[in-house]
């Protein structure tokens, strides 16, 4: 009798945790986002190294990077429960913010930029993209999978 009471109590508690657990609905670790983010970071920093040259000499690579940024923003936008990830990518891709899209805008306006500025700006762009990659990496796929197994969702 006592056991049945405790079991019912614990099951009710588990049910409450599951139903009240909004964070379980958060975006889970996404291998594509992580991989794409890493590729964008590498491409962006390599392109920045070339910004002592004329902007017009690199238009193909610039357009490619801008297209990749647009694609990841669109992808993140449509991922469920991903407001923070989407907001972070939107900042990176916004030409009015001082990250990679803002850098490309400045390069276009000035034609070329100084070598010291390239190094310093690379640090800033790299730090911003690292934050997104670290955020994605913090999402623990093992914990999510274990929970789904317990709940019989896998």
């Amino acid at each position: 009798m006592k056991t049945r009471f405790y079991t019912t109590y614990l099951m009710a508690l588990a049910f409450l945790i599951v139903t009240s657990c909004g964070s379980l609905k958060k975006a889970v670790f996404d291998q594509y986002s992580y991989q794409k983010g890493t590729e964008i970071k590498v491409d962006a920093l390599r392109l920045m190294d070339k910004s002592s040259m004329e902007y017009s000499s690199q238009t193909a690579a610039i357009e490619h990077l801008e297209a990749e940024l647009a694609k990841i923003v669109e992808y993140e936008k449509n991922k469920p429960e991903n407001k923070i990830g989407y907001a972070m990518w939107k900042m990176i891709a916004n030409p009015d913010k001082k990250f990679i899209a803002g850098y490309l805008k400045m390069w276009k306006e000035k034609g070329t930029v100084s070598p010291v500025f390239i190094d310093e700006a690379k640090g800033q762009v790299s730090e911003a993209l690292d934050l997104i990659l670290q955020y994605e990496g913090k999402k623990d796929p093992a914990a999510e999978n274990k929970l789904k197994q317990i709940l019989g969702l896998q």
Partner: protein
Amino acid sequence: MNVKDILKEIKGNLLGLVGEKFEDLKSESKKDVQDFLDASKEKLERWTLFLASGAITPEEYKWLVESQKDLVVLKGLYAAGVSKIKLGHLKNSILDTVINTALGMVLKPNDTEENADA
């Protein structure tokens, strides 16, 4: 632009995002805020020297300072996201413990009910 004023503005924005006074922050958050401010100070001093020596233009200097301010916002988003993830992990652990305890009770060979019947 004065380095001290910029740092004050960055600290104000950062604490505004965290939503607490620096003195009231938990040690982990406090360290995070302080590390970011120290890094900002170092960068601002370096950029000011570059500007004075003509290694970067005033426009480039302004871009870098603004990028540090934008990083504050991005850092705020990151911190909010990570707290949400940590909360999720904590709830998952609680759920795991509750379910394992319940299963342990159900599968226990000699439970109190049997003892009572005996």
